[in-house]
């Protein structure tokens, strides 16, 4: 397994209150190389927090996360080095508006000395043509549509050659007509064998590309299985209820 998560807990301190909000209550799971795992569940169930713990965007309260056998929650671990190998795509893209598309893609690889500036530039072109945006290479992010921004954001995450990609609701902030172009890029990525964690509300897409589905509710994995297990044969009452709500439309 490339990532192993054991008994992961996360709680947030609430402003001005003594009690804590327990978001994750003991999650044990993992992902194999080349596997595509989708995380679904109701709002506030902790699925985004779960994803953000994997590259320590959120500090886990307790539990262990191992990347290639190395515990990334330990004090001695160089988290910047780990994050190079675990890319993340955000709901709101977060392209750097002070940099052109090209610079967005070349900043991190050049800083990490993965590539020389020349190589990074070639790699940027290659990635942009892969997401169909080579003609936007010298554009400012603010001049792109939402769908284009997200495709650039995916290319940016790929520019440091990560082993795993984390997608945090990548299509939730998009206008409906732009969702397709982003899903297409992700599908292509999934077919190329990228290891992917995907938090999503796009049930159809999750079913199509995933090897495995995690249903998270109240901070625990309440059901887990292949897409057909979960979508066609859900066992837990909560899963059945959730799916009946989201699949009805």
């Amino acid at each position: 397994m490339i990532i192993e998560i054991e008994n992961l807990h996360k709680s947030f301190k609430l402003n001005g209150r003594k009690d804590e909000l327990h978001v994750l209550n003991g999650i044990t799971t993992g992902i194999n190389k080349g596997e595509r795992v989708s995380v679904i569940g109701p709002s506030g169930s902790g699925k985004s927090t779960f994803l953000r713990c994997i590259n320590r965007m959120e500090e886990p309260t307790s539990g262990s996360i191992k990347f290639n056998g190395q515990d990334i929650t330990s004090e001695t671990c160089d988290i910047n080095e780990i994050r190079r190998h675990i890319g993340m795509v955000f709901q709101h893209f977060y392209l750097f508006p002070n940099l052109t598309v090209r610079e967005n893609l070349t900043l991190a690889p050049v800083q990490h000395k993965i590539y020389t500036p020349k190589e990074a530039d070639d790699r940027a072109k290659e990635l942009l043509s892969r997401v169909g945006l080579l003609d936007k290479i010298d554009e400012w992010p603010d001049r792109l549509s939402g769908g284009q921004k997200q495709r650039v954001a995916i290319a940016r995450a790929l520019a440091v050659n990560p082993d795993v990609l984390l997608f945090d609701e990548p299509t939730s902030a998009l206008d409906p007509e732009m969702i397709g172009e982003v899903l297409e890029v992700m599908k292509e990525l999934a077919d190329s064998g990228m290891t992917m964690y995907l938090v999503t509300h796009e049930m159809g897409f999750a079913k199509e590309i995933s090897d495995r589905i995690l249903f998270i509710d109240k901070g625990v994995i309440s059901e887990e299985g292949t897409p057909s297990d979960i979508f066609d044969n859900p066992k837990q009452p909560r899963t059945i209820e959730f799916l009946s709500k989201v699949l009805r439309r």
Partner: protein
Amino acid sequence: MITRNNNNNLQDLQKRYGMARGDIVLAVCAVILLFLLYRSGFFTAESWADFARRFEQNFIRESRYMMLVNGLKATIFMTFFSTLLGIAVGLILSVIRVAHKGGVRIPFLNWLANCYITVLRGTPVMVQLLIWNFTIFASARTLNLQYIAILAFGLNSGAYIAEIFRGGIESIDGGQMEAARSLGLSYGKSMRFVILPQAVRNVIPMLFNEFIALLKETSVAGYIGIDDLTRAGQDIQSLTMEHSQPLIMVALIYLAIVLLLSHLIKRLENWLSRSKRG
């Protein structure tokens, strides 16, 4: 939010009275100018000739206008380099404070930065100038006084500019830092390549405002014996025994520069909000 509301109120006023903002400003300036001319004897003097004679005495004879020119040079020199020093100091202070708040463990540096800001903002800049000159550099009498002034004004404005930068940094969406960190960039590199360029761009107009503030603040430099613009006016006063004309001329010079800079800031703001970069 507050400034936006004020803007709306101002726009209402302008609509109601059918005046553009520039018109109001010009009208007020004209009234002040007329009053100043009145005080300098423009209308009350026995004659035009009298005003012209005194004007000649104050500014033309023995090339006294050169005193003002040299004073202006000193003022602009001090203001310019104080602002640069202030920006450098302010940037460092603000990054320390923001980094501390953002989880980087630098409690001692943060404590130092807080002390610095508290002390320099909590005492008058003139007192600081006097302390620099008469206490800290008391024995360094060969040092150019203007350098001491630049140090005093620059370090003082650094405390204010730190707050400007802090506001600028904190106005950047937290997702920008997360996105940079998610690529494996360190906190420092994320700051340097992603956050600060955006923050600095947002606060450029405020830095120009600080320049204007400093331009006026340096008028106390005469207290340590620097012949700045204000002091030049006073020097002419003592040469010609003339009360009004030299100081009013000094005031008009300051005002002209401030108006020019304000105009530039406005154009800059328009340009910044129109350009797509950021």
